[in-house]
């Protein structure tokens, strides 16, 4: 069995990663409640277990024991399908997150009695792995002692291969995540429609409009990073951020593309349907929005999907802008953390421990981004719907187009020549990008002064008694 997992490492990574992500969701809910209480100067859940640490288990039990209610006039098929679709989509999107770079393994395999020793050795390389060099085949003669065979003759093959320390390495990883996550909205829309409740349906429609608007700046801001590195593979994007400018500043994209990072962060907030973008559920107006009619485990699935989606999008954010598994400065002391095998590709490591440490670093950064989500949620009031649309169409889309132009120009003039496979952001290019960012910011501030004022959406009714009529005060 151990051999099986050595040859199919992605199976065990998939099991552990999904278990970890879904387990973390439970504790994220606890963190959310604690964050809310800290923001509101309360204590938060502290009854179940020490510091309320067992609260998630109590919550889960409660969900299971609740009545599984379904309105009589709901569309039965779609009502059940909606939460399933949402959670399936989110779980699939975990597959391409680059947790720990690449692991290089050297194994010695006994291939005695095989007709073709080389082929037999190659068949032990994992299907997701790439062989490094040719397998070394070694004949060990039988040891005999006074005509008696002590050990039979054996053939040993030493094969070296590397496999990505992630579930699936797709060369279009970013595009895959964008495509799959854009399907999560179906859960909201179908759930809202199938409930046959006007509040649910209004929530679903709002979610759709929001999604359609914020997908554009999201895609464009991802495109900026993709153009910088010339690859859609998340693992490669991470690997190319593992270096330093002037031996001190880690070459993370957040320093070269701060505006893009902010836009990406705003868009993933909108994608997660959380405050200040939670118009789809908006308790004060729509009861509970699209999940008004859901209870018990179906509601729990929606909840789970929201938090798991946060983990995925935050992990993509970490991979795109915060160097993924890169632990800054520590790899100066312990060089094995950033490669050591191949100087051109720091993601390759021979140690499984290093892979696990990197995964831990990646996950810690992800949780830090998620904390920003919670912090924002409990600090900012909700947008009005026209403000939401204006932010996307009048601010984010033009700015992301401008950033795309700037990035393209910088890559064209300062892009590293030569071998494209090892393209990194050099110091000169980084400075050019920072200047470009400042220029875009200054240009935006200048142009926003010239733009006509946003249309007045609340029509002011100038009748007596209206709060827009000052004379009413005088007359009263």
């Amino acid at each position: 069995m151990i051999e099986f997992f050595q040859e199919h490492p992605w199976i065990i990574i998939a099991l552990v990663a999904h278990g970890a992500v879904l387990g973390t969701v439970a504790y994220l809910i606890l963190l959310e409640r604690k964050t809310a209480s800290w923001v509101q100067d309360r204590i938060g859940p502290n009854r179940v277990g020490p510091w309320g640490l067992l609260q998630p288990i109590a919550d889960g039990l409660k969900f299971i024991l609740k009545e599984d209610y379904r309105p009589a006039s709901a569309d039965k098929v779609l009502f059940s399908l909606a939460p399933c679709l949402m959670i399936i989509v989110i779980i699939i999107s975990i597959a391409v997150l680059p947790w720990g770079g690449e692991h290089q393994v050297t194994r010695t395999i006994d291939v005695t009695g095989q007709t073709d020793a080389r082929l037999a050795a190659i068949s032990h390389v994992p299907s997701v792995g790439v062989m490094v060099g040719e397998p070394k085949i070694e004949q060990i003669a039988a040891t005999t002692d006074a005509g008696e065979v002590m050990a039979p003759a054996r053939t040993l093959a030493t094969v070296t291969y590397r496999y990505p320390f992630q579930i699936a390495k797709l060369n279009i990883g970013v595009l895959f995540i964008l495509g799959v996550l854009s399907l999560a909205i179906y859960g909201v829309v179908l759930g809202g429609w199938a409930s046959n409740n006007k509040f649910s349906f209004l929530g679903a429609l709002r979610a759709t409009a929001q999604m359609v608007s914020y997908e554009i700046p999201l895609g464009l801001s991802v495109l900026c990073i993709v153009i910088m590195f010339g690859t859609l593979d998340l693992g490669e994007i991470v690997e190319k951020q593992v270096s330093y400018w002037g031996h001190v500043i880690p070459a993370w994209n957040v320093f070269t593309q701060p505006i893009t990072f902010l836009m990406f962060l705003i868009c993933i907030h909108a994608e997660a349907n959380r405050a200040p973008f939670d118009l789809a559920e908006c308790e004060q107006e729509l009861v509970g929005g699209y999940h008004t009619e859901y209870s018990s485990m179906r509601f729990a699935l929606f909840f789970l999907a929201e938090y798991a989606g946060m983990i995925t999008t935050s992990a993509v954010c970490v991979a795109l802008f915060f160097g993924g598994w890169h632990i800054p400065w520590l790899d100066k002391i312990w060089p094995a953390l950033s490669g050591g095998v191949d100087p051109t590709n720091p993601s390759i490591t021979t140690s499984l421990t290093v892979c696990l440490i990197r995964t831990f670093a990646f996950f810690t950064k992800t949780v830090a981004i998620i904390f920003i989500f919670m912090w924002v949620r409990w600090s900012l009031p909700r947008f009005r719907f026209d403000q939401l649309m204006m932010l996307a169409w009048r601010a984010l889309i033009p700015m992301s187009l401008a950033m795309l132009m700037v990035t393209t120009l910088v890559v064209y003039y300062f892009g590293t020549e030569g071998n494209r496979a090892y393209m990194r952001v050099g110091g000169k290019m980084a400075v050019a990008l920072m200047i470009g960012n400042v220029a875009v910011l200054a240009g935006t501030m200048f142009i926003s002064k010239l733009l006509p004022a946003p249309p007045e959406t609340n029509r002011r009714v100038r009748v007596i008694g209206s709060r827009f009529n000052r004379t009413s005060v005088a007359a009263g």
Partner: protein
Amino acid sequence: MRLFLQLTTDSMTVILAQTSTELTTAVLFYLFASMSAAAAVWMVLSRNIVRTAVALLFTLLGVAGLYFLLDAEFLAAVQLVVYAGGTLILIIFGVMLTSKSPYSKFEPKLVEVIVAVSVAAVLFVALLMAINNSMPTFGTDAQPAGARYPVDLLGQALLGDYLVPFELSSVLLLVVMIGAAYLAKGRKHEAPPALTTSELSRQAKRWS
């Protein structure tokens, strides 16, 4: 007992090793293909407009899965983004245009059924003939393992050899978008003229 365990794990290893790639591919192929086909049937038979759109979504998802199995990852992802993502708008249209009753159903007339069936039959025959004429020889020209379709080659082809069709289709899309925005904008609501101070005071007198 220990021998038994040893035997079980050994045989398990052998079975699992044999079942690895090819069987997985076959199982996944039949899974995605049957999902596509079943959803297509559901789409045709369903009378509810939203359910029809959802069935279409599952058909497209199954096709995307087949693309993944064929290592055409870029095509698969684009299928997800463009087609599967675009079905959302279809659902919204379906819901908003038929908003009179929440569960409005298709009730096609006999003429519509006949026209639809005959058009579908013609298309199906054309498809069969096309497949028959250009029957690929399966399994002979399998691509070498690990050969992928690099995205950068695709991009270079789009912006190099096929620049003119690419740009033309982009311009077409832009025209459509501008036209849609123009139609959607419609006539401006004319804001009521702001009242002058004298009118306001007159109003105030009338109301007080």
